[in-house]
C-alpha cells in the first residue's frame, strides 16, 4: 500500500485544468481574447491573400496563359502602327492557333451626341476590330451583340465596359446612337471588362470594313493578338518581332497579359508580411495577457494548491495543472481566433466574389503557435505554483 505511487491520469490533468478555467469564465474569455485577435489577424491575412491568389489562378485557368500581344514599342510615337501584313505573317507561324487584331482609327473620337465641342477630348479610342477578336482575347458581351461580318460593314459600334460607363450608355437595343468620327453609329453591344486586354475596356470598337470605307482607316493594326500552342509560348515570343516587322523588329513590343495579372496578385506580398507581423505582435501581447492571468491565478489559489498537495498531488502534477490551464486558455483564444479569421476571410472573399481559400498550414500553424504561446506563458506561473511549499499554501487563508 505504501509502495503505491501518486498518479494523475492525463485525462484528469485536462479535466482539472479545464475546471480551473470554468471557475472564472469571464476572466478566461477576456484573457483568451488577446490571443484570438492575434490569431484571427494572421489567419485572415493569409486567408485573404490565398483567396485572392486563388481568384487569379482560376481566372488564368479560364482565360488561358497562351495569349501574346504585339504592339508598337511605347517609346516610339503614339500614333505608331504595325505593318498591314503583320496579321498574315503571324498567322503563318506554326505554333500560332489564332490571330486577331485591332487598329486605332487615328484622329477619331466618340461622343454621346453631336453637340459636344469636338475639342473636348476624352480617353476613348476608336478602334477597328476584327470579328474574331472577341474569341481570341476571351472577351464576353455584357449586353447586346458583338460585331459579325454583316454588322462590320455598317456604322455600328460595340463599347468597352469603361467606355459605356463614361458615355452613360447601357441600352443596346439599337435605339442608342453615338457621334463617332462625324457619323452616327448605332450601339449594338457592350463588353464585359476584358482582363487579358484591358485596353479594349476604354475603346469603342467598330467593324474593320466600315472603318476603312467611312472613316478613312488605312487598315494597319495597332495591336495583334495571338493564341499560341501551350509550350511554344516562349519560342513564338522570340520570333514575333521579326515576323511582324522584319524591317524594324526593335520597334515591336511583345507582351503576355497573363503575366501582368499574376504579377498584380503578387504585389501585395509586402503588405501581407506587414500585417502578419502585426498579427504576431498581437499574439505576443495576448501571450503576455495569458501569463499575467496565470500569475494572478496562482497567487489567488494558494490554498487550492495546498489542498491538492495534501490530497497527494506531486509538484509535477501541480505544474502540469497550471501549464495545462495556460495552454487551454491560449487554445481557447486560438480556436476562437481561427474561426474569426476564417469568417473574416469568407466575408471578404464573398464581398469580392472571390473563391474562399484557407490553406491548411495556416490552421496547423495557428494551432502550433497557440500551444507554444500558452506553454511559454504558463511555464513561469506553473513552476511557481509547483514550488510553493504545501504548508504555506494551506496557511495563507
Amino acid at each position: 500500500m505504501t509502495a503505491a505511487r501518486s498518479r494523475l491520469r492525463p485525462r484528469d490533468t485536462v479535466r482539472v485544468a479545464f475546471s480551473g478555467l470554468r471557475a472564472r469564465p469571464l476572466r478566461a474569455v477576456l484573457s483568451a481574447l488577446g490571443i484570438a485577435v492575434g490569431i484571427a489577424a494572421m489567419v485572415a491575412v493569409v486567408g485573404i491573400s490565398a483567396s485572392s491568389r486563388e481568384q487569379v489562378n482560376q481566372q488564368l485557368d479560364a482565360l488561358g496563359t497562351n495569349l501574346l500581344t504585339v504592339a508598337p514599342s511605347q517609346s516610339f510615337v503614339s500614333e505608331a502602327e504595325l505593318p498591314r501584313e503583320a496579321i498574315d505573317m503571324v498567322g503563318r507561324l506554326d505554333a500560332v492557333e489564332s490571330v486577331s487584331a485591332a487598329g486605332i482609327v487615328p484622329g477619331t473620337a466618340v461622343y454621346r451626341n453631336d453637340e459636344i465641342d469636338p475639342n473636348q477630348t476624352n480617353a476613348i479610342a476608336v478602334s477597328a476590330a476584327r470579328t474574331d477578336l472577341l474569341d481570341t482575347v476571351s472577351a464576353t458581351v455584357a449586353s447586346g451583340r458583338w460585331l459579325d461580318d454583316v454588322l462590320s460593314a455598317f456604322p455600328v459600334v460595340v463599347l468597352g465596359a469603361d467606355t459605356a460607363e463614361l458615355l452613360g450608355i447601357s441600352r443596346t437595343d439599337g435605339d442608342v446612337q453615338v457621334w463617332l468620327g462625324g457619323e452616327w453609329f448605332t450601339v449594338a453591344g457592350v463588353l464585359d471588362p476584358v482582363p487579358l486586354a484591358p485596353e479594349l475596356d476604354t475603346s469603342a470598337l467598330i467593324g474593320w470594313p466600315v472603318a476603312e470605307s467611312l472613316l478613312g482607316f488605312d487598315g494597319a493594326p495597332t495591336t495583334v493578338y495571338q493564341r499560341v500552342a501551350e509550350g511554344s509560348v516562349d519560342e513564338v515570343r522570340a520570333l514575333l518581332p521579326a515576323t511582324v516587322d522584319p524591317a524594324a523588329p526593335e520597334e515591336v513590343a511583345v507582351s503576355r497579359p497573363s503575366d501582368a495579372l499574376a504579377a498584380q496578385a503578387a504585389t501585395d506580398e509586402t503588405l501581407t508580411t506587414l500585417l502578419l507581423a502585426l498579427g504576431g505582435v498581437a499574439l505576443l501581447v495576448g501571450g503576455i495577457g495569458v501569463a499575467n492571468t496565470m500569475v494572478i491565478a496562482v497567487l489567488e489559489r494558494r490554498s487550492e494548491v495546498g489542498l491538492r498537495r495534501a490530497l497527494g498531488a506531486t509538484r509535477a502534477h501541480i505544474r502540469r495543472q497550471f501549464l495545462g490551464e495556460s495552454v487551454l486558455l491560449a487554445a481557447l483564444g486560438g480556436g476562437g481566433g481561427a474561426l474569426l479569421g476564417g469568417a473574416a476571410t469568407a466575408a471578404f472573399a464573398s464581398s469580392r466574389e472571390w473563391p474562399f481559400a484557407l490553406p491548411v498550414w495556416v490552421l496547423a500553424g495557428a494551432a502550433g503557435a497557440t500551444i507554444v504561446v500558452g506553454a511559454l506563458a504558463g511555464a513561469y506561473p506553473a513552476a511557481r505554483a509547483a514550488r510553493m511549499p504545501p504548508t504555506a499554501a494551506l496557511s495563507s487563508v
Partner: protein
Amino acid sequence: MTVTTAEPVIRLRDVHRRYPGRPPVRALDGVSLSVAPGELVAIVGPSGSGKSTLLNILGTLDRADAGEVCIDGRDVGTLSDKQLSALRAHSIGFVFQQFFLSPGVSALDNVADGLLYTGVSLRERRRRAARTLDRVGLADRLRHRGNELSGGQRQRVAVARALVGRPSFLLADEPTGALDSASGAAVLKLLHELHDGGTTVVVITHDHGVAAELPRQVHILDGRIESDEYLAGAS
C-alpha cells in the same frame, strides 16, 4: 504509557522543528508520540503551542529538523517529495477547519477528488464517493454544490473526501472551529462513529470542550507534550 501490540500508525521520536528568527522559535521541542490503529486522539493546546506545526509534520506537509517521524510504518525522513505525495494520496486523510471545498462543484465530485491523485478512473472515483457520502449521512446531497450546503454539511463532505481513499488515519485540524455548536457536535459525533468503525482519527484543537469528548488527549504547550491522558470509560 500504554503499550499497544499493533504497529503504530504514527510514531514520533524526539521531534524538533524550529523556525528561523531572532531568537529562533522552537515550535516543536522534543515531541514523542505514538498513535495505534483505531485510536481517536485529541491533540490540544493553546494558540502558539505548536499544534499546526505538529499537524504539518504528521501530515508530511513539512519535515522535522531532528528526530524520527514514522507514518504508516515508513520513515518520512528518508522519503523523497514524490514519495511523500504518494503517502498523502494513499495513507492520510486531511480535514481542514475551512473545509476547502470547490464551491461550484457537486458534493459527489468534491469527495471524488479525494481519489484524484491515486490514478483511479472518474467513474470509480464517483462510485466510491457516493458510497462514502452515504457513510457520512449525506446520501441525499450528492448533486448539491459546495455553496448549497450548510457549514456542518460541508465539513461532513470534507470528512468524506478525507475518508474516500481509505487512509490509515484521518488528520483533522480544528474540524469544528468554523461551525456553530450544533453542527460542531454533529461532526464530532461523525468522528466518533468512524472511530467506532475502526478508523484512526487525530483531531487537533485548541478547544478543551472538544478534546474532553475524545478518549485520548495529548496536551501540548510551547512545543512540548505536557500530558497524554486516556479518559476513563471512553472507548
